[in-house]
């Protein structure tokens, strides 16, 4: 849930005065659909990797619940951040800062979806998974959005945990227990978040400065940020090989994760010692690559596991 939402830019066509009321699309935008798509994807992978078969109907309901939980976090984030969203080019066209949706409506919508999603997941799967989903929503809305985001340059390092939980929730929804595998999936997304967001913060530095958000490039400078990006990219590359070490990732996954990990490190190193203009361009490339990175390594892990299961069980 700490993934970047770029959908707001696509909402920008046509500012609509508030007296015309919100459209259904505005309420959908409140759920941050692009963030939700990544939440859904990692949750699906977590659930399918679990060594326990789940009834298809339960699977679909669980994924819908996790998606709604992610959407609830987005709505609560937009409720609280309406003031700073109005100051940034990337977010100023969102439904709340433009006045298409009232702040209280966003809050009510977020709280309602939180209750529905947690209850539904608990009834459909188990209450451990539901508790994790409730904690994730709380973590994103309260710990990250309300507490950390405006106070510390480490906001997204800690807040990144919220985005890392869905894969674990998917696994727990299927098995009812937490084991080493979902912890590793959590760790991969957790370590992926800082380089992903700091790459964005490097080329959107002015935006964050305008909104007075203490992102690392604004507080510690670009050089310190690039070093941090590199450190996290190395840690990420190592963590992404953990599934192989713990026996639930095979050789194909090892090759994919190894190659993409080297790609992350290479793109991070390329940020060092360049002019500001080139650095901004390269940080944008790193940001795009990081999105591809997460998608591909999770997909590789999933496809390899499914192929192996199909070969064994027919």
């Amino acid at each position: 849930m700490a993934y970047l939402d770029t959908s707001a830019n696509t909402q920008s066509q046509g500012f609509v005065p508030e007296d015309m009321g919100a459209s259904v699309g505005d309420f959908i935008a409140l759920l941050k659909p692009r963030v939700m798509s990544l939440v859904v994807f990692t949750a699906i992978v977590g659930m399918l990797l679990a060594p326990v078969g789940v009834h298809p109907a339960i699977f679909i309901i669980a994924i819908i619940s996790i998606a709604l939980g992610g959407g609830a976090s987005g709505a609560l984030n937009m409720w609280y951040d309406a003031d700073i969203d109005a100051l940034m080019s990337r977010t100023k066209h969102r439904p709340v800062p433009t006045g298409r949706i009232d702040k209280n409506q966003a809050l009510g919508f977020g709280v309602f979806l939180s209750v529905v999603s947690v209850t539904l997941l608990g009834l459909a799967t188990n209450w451990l998974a539901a508790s994790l989903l409730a904690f994730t929503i709380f973590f994103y809305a309260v710990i990250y959005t309300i507490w950390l985001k405006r106070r510390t340059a480490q906001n997204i390092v800690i807040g990144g945990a919220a985005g890392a939980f869905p894969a674990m929730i998917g696994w727990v929804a299927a098995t009812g227990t937490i084991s080493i595998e979902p912890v590793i999936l959590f760790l991969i997304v957790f370590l992926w978040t800082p380089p992903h967001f700091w790459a964005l913060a490097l080329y959107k530095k002015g935006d964050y400065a305008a909104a007075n958000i203490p992102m690392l490039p604004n507080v510690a400078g670009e050089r310190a940020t690039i070093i941090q990006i590199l450190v996290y990219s190395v840690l990420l590359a190592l963590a992404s090989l953990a599934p192989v070490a713990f026996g639930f990732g095979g050789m194909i996954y090892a090759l994919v994760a190894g190659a993409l990990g080297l790609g992350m490190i290479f793109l991070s190193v390329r940020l060092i010692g360049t002019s500001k203009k080139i650095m901004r361009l390269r940080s944008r490339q790193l940001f795009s690559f990081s999105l591809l990175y997460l998608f591909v390594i999770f997909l590789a892990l999933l496809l390899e596991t499914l192929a192996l299961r199909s070969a064994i069980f027919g």
Partner: protein
Amino acid sequence: MTEQVSAMTKEQTVDAKEETRLKRQRMRSIAIALSLVAFVMTFFILTVVRMGPDLFVRPL
């Protein structure tokens, strides 16, 4: 003549805004209705799947 045209344009704009507002209201109502139907169906399916086929096995 210009004033008449200006008044007509203003009226048309108000009408268009009101039409958009009503259209949005209608779409919101439809979305709420569909969400409620989906909610009820989800709980029905969930109950059947969780309780199994025994749910329907009972003396008449």
